[in-house]
């Protein structure tokens, strides 16, 4: 449903949002057993007595999970604490054990923060280890849980390691909520603990939303939104929910604390279960697992091996160039900043390098492009050996690894030779001569006519040169000729 009017929060109300993000860790095996942690289209193929919760089976903690969780915690500036696992009891067949093993009152990571690109800081309450649940499919009644005649359960995902990152309710705008998730995703990729794909469910975002009058510091009743599958969807869901709360308050009602299901197609949230008390989950310490007690040396080793995080990488490129922030952000998000730095170091103009990468290197595999070859390409373009259009084509060939990725060989093979400005001028003179009416209209005061004829002449030139003319040079020449 596009084109519908999206609601906006009235100016006298303020948004209060906290996010809970579940991240699947990219380990080889599950949290408590040696079953493969991989997506399988064939159900129940990665299961064993432990993740099926069979009597007599015992969980053993995966050491890589602990390492990844602490790495994530440190990347978010959390302090690391001794922890124990707990059982969260609930009856739902997605967990065969009838409880989820999680960290409750003693999580591994506490009190961190995440700085957004614009400098806003969002507090992180905790980032704890827990296991994922299996997948249920409801059969009959249109696949809806309440009308189904029965359900099918696949336990491949049961026991897959997760870290749940819980923010403080510090987020005040939809844009910040989206920026938080985007920044968190970039960090997860940078520290290589998850593939962090929202659309595939390896990163899942729940939003706790409430509103309050501007100027107030109270925390009103919140609703937890689930089933948000993209960053765009997150923005829509929060906006919708906030407006729903405002509508209720303005008609002297109040929202009730509950979990709500975001319906992306319908553009609305619907009531789910009412939010239960923590008491009702009857949390207690998992007797089959012993405490985790990380040493200061372990934490120091994690800090020592921490890669440079996206914020610092953006700052570095920002210092070197004058391009817009979003260009830098895109390059870092695609992990192409090392490539850019290589090209800049090899002598190419920083702004041109970043713009070229952002515009023309949005491909999955660009491993054949090096800092050196990219620098050569940018210099060829700056020196007039290639037009912008040609540079774009050469870069595509470089990424594909054609001619060993060498821009000079590619340009030669494609027959790209620099169009001398003399030759271009001759061609333009010829066109003016052949099309006097069009040229008259181009030189007229009518802005619309002028634009139309600019398109006409540029098109003719591109046609005559098979696209090899530099568009900017053409525009400059046309404007010089019409002035003189």
């Amino acid at each position, binding site marked *: 449903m596009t084109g519908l009017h999206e609601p906006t929060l009235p100016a006298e109300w303020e948004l209060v949002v906290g996010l809970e993000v579940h991240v699947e860790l990219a380990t*080889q*095996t599950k949290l408590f057993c040696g*079953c493969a942690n991989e997506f399988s289209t064939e159900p129940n193929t990665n299961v064993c007595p432990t993740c*099926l919760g069979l009597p007599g089976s015992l969980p053993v*903690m995966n050491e890589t999970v602990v390492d990844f969780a602490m790495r994530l915690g440190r990347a978010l500036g959390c302090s690391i604490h001794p922890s124990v696992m707990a059982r969260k009891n609930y009856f739902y067949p997605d967990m065969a054990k009838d409880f989820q093993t999680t960290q409750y009152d003693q999580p591994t990571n506490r009190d961190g923060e995440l700085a957004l690109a614009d400098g806003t800081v969002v507090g992180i309450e905790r980032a704890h280890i827990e296991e994922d649940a299996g997948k249920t499919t409801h059969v009959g009644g249109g696949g809806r849980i309440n009308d*189904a005649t029965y*359900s099918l359960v696949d336990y491949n995902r049961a026991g897959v390691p997760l870290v749940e990152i819980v923010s403080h309710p510090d987020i005040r705008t939809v844009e910040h909520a989206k920026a938080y998730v985007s920044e968190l995703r970039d960090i997860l990729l940078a520290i290589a603990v998850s593939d962090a794909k929202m659309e595939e469910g390896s990163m899942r975002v729940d939003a706790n939303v409430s509103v309050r009058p501007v100027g107030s510091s109270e925390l009103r009743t919140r609703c937890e939104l689930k089933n948000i599958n993209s960053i765009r969807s997150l923005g829509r869901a929060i906006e919708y929910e906030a407006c729903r709360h405002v509508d209720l308050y303005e008609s002297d009602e109040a929202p009730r604390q509950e979990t709500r299901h975001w319906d992306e197609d319908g553009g609305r949230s619907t009531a789910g279960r009412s939010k239960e008390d923590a008491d009702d989950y009857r949390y207690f310490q998992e007797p089959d697992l012993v405490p985790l007690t990380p040493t200061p040396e372990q934490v120091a080793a994690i800090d020592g091996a921490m890669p440079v995080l996206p914020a610092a990488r953006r700052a570095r490129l920002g210092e070197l160039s004058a391009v817009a922030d979003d260009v830098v952000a895109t390059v870092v998000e695609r992990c192409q900043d090392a490539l850019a730095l290589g090209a800049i170091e090899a002598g190419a103009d920083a702004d041109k390098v970043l713009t070229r990468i952002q515009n023309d290197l949005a491909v999955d595999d660009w491993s054949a492009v090096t800092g050196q070859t990219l620098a050569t390409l940018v210099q060829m373009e700056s020196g007039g050996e290639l037009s912008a259009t040609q540079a774009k084509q050469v870069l595509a060939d470089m990424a594909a690894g054609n001619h060993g990725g060498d821009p000079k060989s590619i340009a030669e093979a494609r027959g790209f030779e620099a169009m001398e400005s003399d030759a271009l001028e001759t061609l333009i003179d010829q066109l003016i001569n052949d099309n006097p009416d069009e040229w008259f209209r181009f030189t007229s005061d009518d802005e619309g006519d002028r634009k139309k004829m600019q398109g006409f002449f540029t098109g003719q030139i591109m046609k005559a040169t098979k696209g090899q003319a530099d568009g900017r040079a053409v525009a400059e020449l046309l404007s010089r000729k019409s002035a003189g």
Partner: protein
Amino acid sequence: MSERITRDEVIHVARLARLELTDAEIDEFTGQLGDILEHAADVEALDVGDIEPTSHPLPMSNVLRADVRRLSLERNEFLAQAPAAEAGQFRVPPILGEEP
């Protein structure tokens, strides 16, 4: 005898554990649970200021395994033991909702 736990609380806890209790059982367990809580209160009265709190009964920590794959079970083998199965999955009665 004790006011440590009410009859309503016992009914609530029984519901969470999916236990169906008769009125007589509710009365009986309310008394018994009250006694247990009473005992906990006795322990609470002790001065344990000098004693290091323990978070776990076992004198161990950091029992970890390497992140190495092991063979999973043969699907037919365990699905054959399930009350019902379909399309490689466990078949379960309709789910009324997710709640504790």
